[in-house]
């Protein structure tokens, strides 16, 4: 692919952007991002960050922002609704659907960004686009060039959201590009569970390009469950930017089953002494799917703790990529970081590229990492067969178990059980 077609792919996408300048924070942010998109090119496999992920299946197609919003009924979204989630925002092809949403206005604020802008101008102006740097990331820049709405969760100091908050993004139309945006600001001592959920009601090709920013204040706790279950013809590019402060704890679980091609970037930065993060990841792909996960955990201050476990289950001719970068900056003494990447190949044609990357500039730290790629253990299969399970049932149960170890980190039992069923169904099919 030439640079010229790269340019035109971005330029074509950009053509449908919102152009109205209302002089507000979002308009200014958009203008900066538009300029940046003009200077960037679509990544290709010559870029170190995209070495294993050839996005030409995506750039060969063309996508437009949705022209006419799909009207969905409560019955249409019923399969995705979580009874446990007290409040919910629904976006259909990126467009906010107020009739399907149950926002909250206080003390915890859950609202569409556009609706909140007049009241929460300062918070939005301060935080939106701050964490999710777009200078070097064409997709993040593109998303930002489109930012005119999204999901906003504001937790004032000490606020506790007892029940999970569900952010549901539904793709319904073919050849549509949508740019979901999330902003979560968790004030000091607050706590919440947020489910960021990408689903589809179409089997056609479309593009979901997401950016989420999660800012944790001192002693804040955030359980962030990100579920990517796009259609098998869909394309998904997502970016989460997280910052943790003193005493705060970010517990992220990212799960990806869907999409023809997906890329998820998670950037976590510890901005003050003693922040903590736990990150679980599961990518399960089959047929000709590709799932790429890139994470960076950046310890900039002392006494940080990070625990990361990423797993890939790869069948058919599918590919999975994991790049897990851990940075311990000079002065980030007594950092305690563990990372494990475990990968299960279910067929001879399946492929995994895993790359742990440790960059340590402090001398008194504890960092461990490990990566394994393999098939199911013969002894495990035999144990189950010796109890009467067929070869297929034994393999399916062990594959399920491999994935369930990540899913059980999800505290929302209704969601966890559904995802477990998805994994089970997929392992039985494989």
């Amino acid at each position: 692919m030439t640079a010229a077609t790269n340019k035109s792919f971005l330029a074509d996408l950009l053509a449908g952007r919102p152009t109205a300048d209302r002089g507000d924070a979002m308009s200014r942010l958009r203008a900066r991002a538009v300029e940046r998109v003009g200077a960037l090119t679509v990544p290709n496999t010559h870029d170190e960050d995209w070495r294993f992920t050839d996005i030409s299946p995506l750039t060969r197609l063309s996508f437009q922002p949705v022209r006419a919003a799909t009207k969905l009924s409560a019955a249409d979204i019923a399969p995705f609704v979580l009874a446990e989630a007290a409040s919910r925002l629904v976006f259909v092809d990126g467009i906010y659907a107020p009739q399907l949403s149950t926002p909250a206005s206080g003390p915890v604020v859950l609202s569409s960004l556009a609706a909140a802008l007049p009241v929460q101008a300062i918070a939005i102006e301060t935080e939106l686009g701050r964490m999710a740097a777009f200078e070097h990331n064409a997709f993040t820049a593109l998303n930002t060039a489109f930012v005119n709405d999204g999901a906003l969760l504001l937790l004032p100091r000490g606020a506790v959201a007892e029940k999970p908050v569900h952010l549901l993004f539904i793709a319904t139309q073919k050849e549509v590009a949508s740019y979901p945006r999330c902003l979560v600001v968790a004030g000091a001592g607050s706590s919440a569970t947020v489910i960021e959920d990408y689903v589809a009601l179409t089997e056609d090709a479309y593009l979901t390009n997401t950016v989420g920013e999660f800012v944790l204040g001192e002693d804040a706790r955030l359980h962030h469950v990100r579920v990517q279950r796009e259609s098998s013809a869909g394309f998904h590019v997502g970016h989460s930017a997280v910052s943790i402060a003193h005493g705060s704890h970010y517990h992220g679980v990212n799960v990806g089953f869907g999409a023809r091609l997906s890329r998820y970037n998670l950037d976590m930065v510890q901005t003050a002494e003693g922040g903590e993060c736990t990150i679980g990841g599961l990518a399960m792909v089959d047929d000709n799917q590709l799932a790429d996960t890139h994470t960076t955990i950046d310890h900039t201050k002392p006494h940080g703790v990070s625990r990361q476990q990423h797993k890939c289950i790869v069948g058919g001719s599918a590919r999975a990529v994991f790049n897990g970068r851990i940075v311990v900056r000079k002065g980030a003494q007594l950092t305690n970081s563990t990372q494990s990447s475990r990968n299960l190949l279910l067929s001879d044609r399946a492929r995994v590229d895993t790359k742990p990357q440790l960059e340590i500039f402090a001398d008194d730290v504890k960092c461990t990492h490990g990566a394994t790629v393999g098939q199911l253990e013969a002894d495990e299969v035999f144990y189950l067969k010796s109890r009467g399970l067929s070869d297929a049932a034994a393999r399916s149960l062990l594959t399920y178990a491999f994935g369930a170890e990540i899913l059980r980190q999800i505290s929302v039992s209704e969601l966890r059980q559904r995802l477990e069923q998805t994994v089970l169904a997929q392992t039985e099919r494989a």
Partner: protein
Amino acid sequence: MIGKDSKTLLDVQGLRATVNGIEILKGMDLTIKSGEVHAIMGPNGSGKSTFAKVLAGHPAYVVTGGSVQFEGKDLFVLAPEARARAGLFLGFQYPIEIPGVANAQFLRLAYNTVQTQHGKDELDPLEFDDFVREKMKLLEMNPDFLDRSVNEGFSGGEKKRNEILQMALLEPRVAILDETDSGLDIDALRIVAGGVNQLANKDNAVVLVTHYQRLLNYIEPDYVHVMDAGRIIKTGPKALALELESRGYDWVSAEARAGAGAAA
């Protein structure tokens, strides 16, 4: 207990097997009838565990000679899972941990698979829960073990209890317990042995593979076999185990060599 109208459950004749091309079983003969408890003893490397794994169908072991009839049928035409469904059970020396699968889920799956084979109805999770809790009492197991992942973080004794629990659920015709006593403290040994004793009846048979006589204080064998270099070289009553405990194995091996010499 040796019964008058007992049936032959397992008939092993001249069994030979290799692992990684090395012959471990070199002509093993053994006949097991219903109602019987057999103990197989012998020094390390004599082939005891290999024998247990070959019967269960472990893929690493290759049968190179001899035959095994299980209830009158060729055992080796059956896949491992078919042997289990037909009523052969192996209690593992090192039970496998399966993080991510609840023990209850695994036990129910195994139970229902074997039940279906016998033309019986499967139990749903609720029915199974009641059923398995009863069985757990036999082994003084805490019901919490149902919710935990299979064997994950279980102590040695807990793993072995879980093995015997599986035996209790699957009700095999022949149970081979491979070093079920290893790693058990005296209380766990008593409980596990008590469970096995309650499960042994006139229609089934138990084969204890063990290093130590200690287990046989709790489960009384009808026969004690000594294995050496891939064969059974001596068979005797329970008292033989006591003799082995005090005198070791060397004299049996020497006797066997002398016997072989005399026969030649």
